[in-house]
């Protein structure tokens, strides 16, 4: 379903959705872009620079309570009650999602879906509508979505894709959820004219050209990785790594987690079982209780990150686990550049 929405009407569309929690990227007081929940008064604004934290934080929050447990004591008899804690009901709409971020969601769907589905993720996913915005100009210097089988207007994972046509948006509802969102404010939309569709075409083609950074032959690299597990390359590339979690925590497709019991009272026993983000970049990620660590150094951890994204994931899903948003490049405190590392992989030995 294709529609047209004037930019003036955008805000009203947002207002129409008051029964859902609406998120969109905003400039925070300290000058950062971030997806934040809109208050009643807020005017929807789109087309912004890249946020530091991707919308992953809404679909796959950094802390998810999986269950709550509490113990009751009768004399010496103790009974432990365990109760699952699914995310609360309530529809969510996220505006201004970048196509790469949409694709990231699409990758998370694969991880948390399939044979074993993750109820927590899916409950959030199902009640969330992603309203994407095609990138007219790349939101980041380091965008390279086109190199990893994405594009500034790719539709995977999104429910709606907006394309900026100057004074109006071209609205394409991609899923039922998306259509529902549009029909919720039917009167705000007009039907597109043929020239609109042409313009969209133009905008999309043009935008792809604006992407400066490129990772050439990603598939070749993926193949090449198989032979390089023990290469000294990793030591060299990891020299300046400081083993922080920036690249992974802020990656829209990284999804590793840790599960802990947060004991709130020892007697009677009470607490929560929580899932929190974790990252292969932390030394204790693979630490065994024996003290042995199969990934003892940062080289092996850098390698793991790249292998997961460009080899293991490809083997399982035939997709890269990288959407080319470039956050890991932009935000790395020591300027480690995934593109140049992978380029080295490609040129390695040849």
């Amino acid at each position, binding site marked *: 379903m294709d529609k047209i929405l004037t930019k003036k009407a955008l805000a009203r569309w947002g207002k129409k959705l008051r029964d859902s929690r609406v998120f969109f990227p905003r400039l925070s007081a300290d000058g950062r872009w971030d997806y934040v929940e809109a208050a009643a008064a807020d005017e929807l604004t789109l087309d912004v620079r890249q946020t530091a934290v991707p919308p992953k934080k809404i679909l796959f929050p950094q802390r998810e309570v999986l269950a709550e447990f509490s113990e009751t004591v009768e004399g010496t008899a103790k009974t432990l009650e365990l109760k699952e804690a699914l995310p609360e009901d309530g529809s969510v709409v996220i505006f201004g999602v970048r196509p790469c971020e949409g694709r990231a969601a699409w990758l998370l769907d694969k991880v948390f879906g399939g044979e074993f589905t993750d109820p927590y993720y899916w409950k959030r996913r199902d009640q969330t509508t992603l309203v994407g915005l095609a990138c007219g100009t790349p939101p980041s210097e380091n965008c390279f979505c086109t190199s990893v089988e994405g594009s500034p207007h790719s539709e995977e994972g999104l429910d709606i894709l907006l394309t900026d046509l100057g004074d109006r948006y071209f609205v394409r509802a991609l899923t039922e959820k998306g259509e529902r969102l549009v029909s919720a404010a039917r009167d705000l939309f007009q039907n597109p004219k043929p020239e609109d569709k042409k313009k969209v075409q133009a905008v999309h083609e043009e935008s792809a050209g604006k992407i400066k950074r490129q990772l050439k032959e990603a598939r070749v690299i993926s193949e090449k990785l198989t032979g390089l597990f023990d290469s000294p390359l990793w030591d060299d590339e990891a020299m*300046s790594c400081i083993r922080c979690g920036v690249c992974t925590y*802020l990656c829209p497709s990284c999804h590793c987690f840790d599960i802990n019991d947060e004991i709130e009272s020892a007697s009677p026993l009470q607490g929560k079982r929580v899932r929190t983000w974790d990252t292969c970049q932390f030394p204790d990620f693979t630490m065994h209780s024996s003290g042995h660590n199969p990934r003892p*150094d940062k080289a092996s951890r850098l390698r793991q990150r790249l292998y997961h994204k460009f080899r293991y994931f490809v083997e399982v899903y035939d997709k890269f686990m990288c959407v080319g948003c470039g956050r890991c490049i932009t935000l790395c*405190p*020591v300027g480690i550049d995934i593109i140049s590392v992978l380029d080295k992989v490609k040129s390695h030995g040849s």
Partner: protein
Amino acid sequence: MAKIDELKEEARKLLQEGKVKYIIGYTTGTDGWSAVPAFIRTAEEVDRIVWDPTCVHNLTKFLVDEKRRKSRSRKPDTRPVGLFVKGCDSRAVVVLLQEKFINRGDVYLLGVSCEKAGVIDDRKLAQKLKGKKPMKVELGDNGRIVISTPEGTLEVPAEELLADRCLECRANFPVVFDVLAGDKVKRAVEKPYGSLEKIEKLTAEERFKFWKEQLDKCIRCYACRSVCPMCYCDECVVDSVNLSVTADTSAEEKAQRIKWLQRSAESSENFVYHFVRAIHLGGRCIDCGECERACPLDIPLRFLNKKLEKEASELFGYEAGFDAELPALIACFRDEDPQDFIR
């Protein structure tokens, strides 16, 4: 900054004569303008070395990796590592010496004086450029910073771009070095803790509001401690994996190791984490500002460490990173230490 060429010559000599294992310096990153750490192993590579106001990193951090590697290898290469140090970085070296983490012989220090300038704050730069992409950032004459962009070059007074900590720096040339580029010109700082005032003058409630907002942002990616040269512990106490784990520790005890805080990045836990970091840096932080720079969420961590630096100096007359022979701040006392807060 022309003198940097002397350092490069020195570096080349050191490598040719095999006097150092390798040299840790700066080179230009993939963005084509900002410096990143470089590990120079051959004389040929020396040309990659750059020195400009984007050389923000405190390379001292990499001595920690070096020590780990050394301890792991069977017959370690005992030659020193060449290390480029600014004033602040050199004070980090002093603290590492003071805490016997390294020996003076482990490093060959290529000191660079910031003279009247320092390094830039890329956030300030971005604001100045309003979306323009820099191609090169250099220190021009008369303390101005020259930025070349595709749209042409522009000159800005250093003060407008320098990192706050540089503006409050009291050691803008290395306190310890083997060779030095640039002159030991002391910059006059009338208010070494000026940046704290705007927080200190707030009421308790306002201060709490401020810090809660800031620390709520924290996602505990630990970039702050990872980039900090003082955070060289093999394992941070807030992680406490091995603590009190001995041969006779039961699996259950391992499972129930001390959790000073939960992994959840929640306000209360973030407070504990940042408290521990701040207090552990008391008398050790040399204000290289790396934690704040590395933070992807722009938490003004420097204000925490700077506060304790201020208290240490005002309460105990202690300044970190100037004398490796002194005992650590919390490993000594004076009879006249203030105790007005004690009943």
